[in-house]
């Protein structure tokens, strides 16, 4: 009896321990995808996964959503520990750090030249001769979104742009609170500064991936954006992504600068939305140059070999011409598959035409890891300029100095 009691105690203790550690060694039968998609994109993904599972009985594909920054953190932590999902979805700039850290697999190991030739030239994230992501869209480019209720004809120059924005910045009931802003965008992230940097003839790095931030073009771009808030007062005093998005969706902003991931959401929200290329810079006559990149799927280096065939099949399906056609029609995102891109005929869809024009004005986002250090060096100084705590010249100098230090530290 006592023996039985003791055995029961030992079993209980073991059960607690095993229960706590349960799942550690459990064999995973499915494919997991971690993504940072917008809600409309997520809906399409879920529908595709359901179709894939129907065609592959017994296969479970699961998704987990993160914000872009969080996805990066979570994925690198999980992959570091030898785990993580088989597939990770995101924009091109993830490829640099992930590939240097050997967290994602070069896809030329899985797919042949023939498969890659089906994609639009320049849409494949290539680093050191290897392809690291299969895109389901190209672009990710910022453009001018406007509410047709307030803006009948989009601006073609920045002078017009400021003028329209001023006309639409109004305090309708005179209570001292602005009821509608002429322009909103994420004035916290330097990604929204880059188009204007290009518009003044500058760029973030040279061919050797060295930062080129302390330039007259950067000073002018910083001053241009700062003036939108401080001088022209067409931009809210504090405006991050969420605030910009909320104001535009609620009809409290006439124009917004945002990328293709958001356009479908505005249409769904019932906004009579128009799309136009960012207007030509009046001072230089140059077009603003938003960063252009693909968004796609990369394969975790920890994904078991026995799953790779299924992963290939899933990737092929998720990025298939048919699915990209649906994405293009529903969410107005440009396709990465040549077959669909070639079928686009100008004039058939004004929205897509303008997106394509904006895409052509843009410049390819560098996928090298140095880009990360450059973003993080630009951000604080850019915010300081917008908050009137730093003059553009000092900000440009600080950005450059910090970027050089950060790149050196990354390689220590």
């Amino acid at each position: 009896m006592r023996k039985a009691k003791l055995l029961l105690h030992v079993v209980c203790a073991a059960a607690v321990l095993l229960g706590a550690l349960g799942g550690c060694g459990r064999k995973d039968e499915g494919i997991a995808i971690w993504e940072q998609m917008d809600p409309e994109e997520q809906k399409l993904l879920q529908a595709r996964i359901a179709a894939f599972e129907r065609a592959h009985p017994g296969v479970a594909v699961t998704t987990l959503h993160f914000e872009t920054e969080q996805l990066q953190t979570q994925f690198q932590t999980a992959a570091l520990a030898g785990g993580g999902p088989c597939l990770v979805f995101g924009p091109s700039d993830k490829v640099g750090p992930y590939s240097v850290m050997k967290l994602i697999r070069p896809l030329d190991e899985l797919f042949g030249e023939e498969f890659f030739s089906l994609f639009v030239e320049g849409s494949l994230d290539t680093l050191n001769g290897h392809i690291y992501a299969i895109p389901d869209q190209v672009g990710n480019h910022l453009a001018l979104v406007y509410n047709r209720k307030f803006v009948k004809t989009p601006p073609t120059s920045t002078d017009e742009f400021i003028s329209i924005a001023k006309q639409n910045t109004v305090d309708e009931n005179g209570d001292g609170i602005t009821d509608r802003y002429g322009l909103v965008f994420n004035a916290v992230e330097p990604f929204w500064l880059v188009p204007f940097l290009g518009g003044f003839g500058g760029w973030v790095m040279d061919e050797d991936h060295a930062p080129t931030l302390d330039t007259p073009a950067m000073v002018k771009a910083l001053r241009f954006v700062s003036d939108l808030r401080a001088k022209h007062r067409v931009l809210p005093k504090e405006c991050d992504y969420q605030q910009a998005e909320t104001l535009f969706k609620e009809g409290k902003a006439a124009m917004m600068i945002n990328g293709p991931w958001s356009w479908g959401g505005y249409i769904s929200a019932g906004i009579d939305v128009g799309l136009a290329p960012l207007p030509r810079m009046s001072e230089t006559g140059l077009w603003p140059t938003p960063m252009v990149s693909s968004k796609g799927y990369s394969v975790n280096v920890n994904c078991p070999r026995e799953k790779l065939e299924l992963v290939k099949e899933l990737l092929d399906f998720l990025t298939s011409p048919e699915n990209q056609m649906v994405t293009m029609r529903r969410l107005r995102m440009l396709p990465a598959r040549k077959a669909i891109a070639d079928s686009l005929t100008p004039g058939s869809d004004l929205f897509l035409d303008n997106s394509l024009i904006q895409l052509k004005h843009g410049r390819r986002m560098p996928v090298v890891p140095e880009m990360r250090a450059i973003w993080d060096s630009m951000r604080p100084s850019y915010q300081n300029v917008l908050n009137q705590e730093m003059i553009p010249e000092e900000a440009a100098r600080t950005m450059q100095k910090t970027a050089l230090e950060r790149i050196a530290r990354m390689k220590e």
Partner: protein
Amino acid sequence: MTHGAGEQANSLLGSLSHRLRSGGGRRSFPYVLLAPTVAIMLVVVLYPLIYNFVLAFKNMSMYHFHDARFVGLRNFAQIFRETELYLVFGKTIIWTAVNVFFHVTLGVAIAVVLNGRIYGSGIFRALLILPWAIPQYISALTWKGMFNHEYGAVNLILSKVFHLAPIPWFSDATWAFIAPIITNVWLGFPFMMIVALGGLQSIPHELYEAAELDGAGALGKLRNVTLPLLKPILAPAIVLGTVWTFNNMNVIWLVTGGGLPADKTHILVTYIYKAAFTYYRYSYAAAFSVIVFFLLLGFTFLFMKYFKVSEAAFE
């Protein structure tokens, strides 16, 4: 199970059973029950701690992810050379001190009120504990919305009711630091209130009567009876509160959007998080964590010693 293995298991159980019957079994049985917890603690606490210490002496970063090597005290030397450590440390001290001060004073004050005979104290208690019951994530984001420059409730009240200029909560570094402090004070005082209330209810009423006979007024009773008897209960709670606040990353990170404006609202933990996961400086961040660990260990040790926390209330 083979015959041999079965015999071995029987013999093991027999030996354990024998020890149980003798005094040794009674002594060892608690250890059997503790074993799973100890095993889990070893895996989830001790192992990461040791791993962190090892990492602090390496050069693990984006470019040395798989081939990190030992670099001695290089990371520590770099941290102490940078002015950033002292700036962020100073902000962390302000963040912790201001938060804990308000948590304790508000918590004790409200507990004293609730401990008296007031109508509907149960309802007040339930309402006051709400901030603690709501998930931090939701509270922090709600407060962030309330601090919005133009449409937030705080600025609307300031401008509409008090006719004051709206506060630039997230574009001015000082206000951007005050905003998460307000949020965290709101989130944290219920814990101290509950602890203090528990302590107050355990103080015998006779002591107050005796103090009254000795001519003590309300303040005298508070100083000579309430506070000394609350000390053994409040002191460990203050130590815990200090460590939690010092390491509380959620509130300040969520309210300031990760350091807005211009990375000026970092405390040590958010700074370390950013160093590791944004800048890929894993070993540098690990070395920073080791410094924070010893800072907190030192604080706890000194606090416990100075306030003689382990003394019983009536000693």
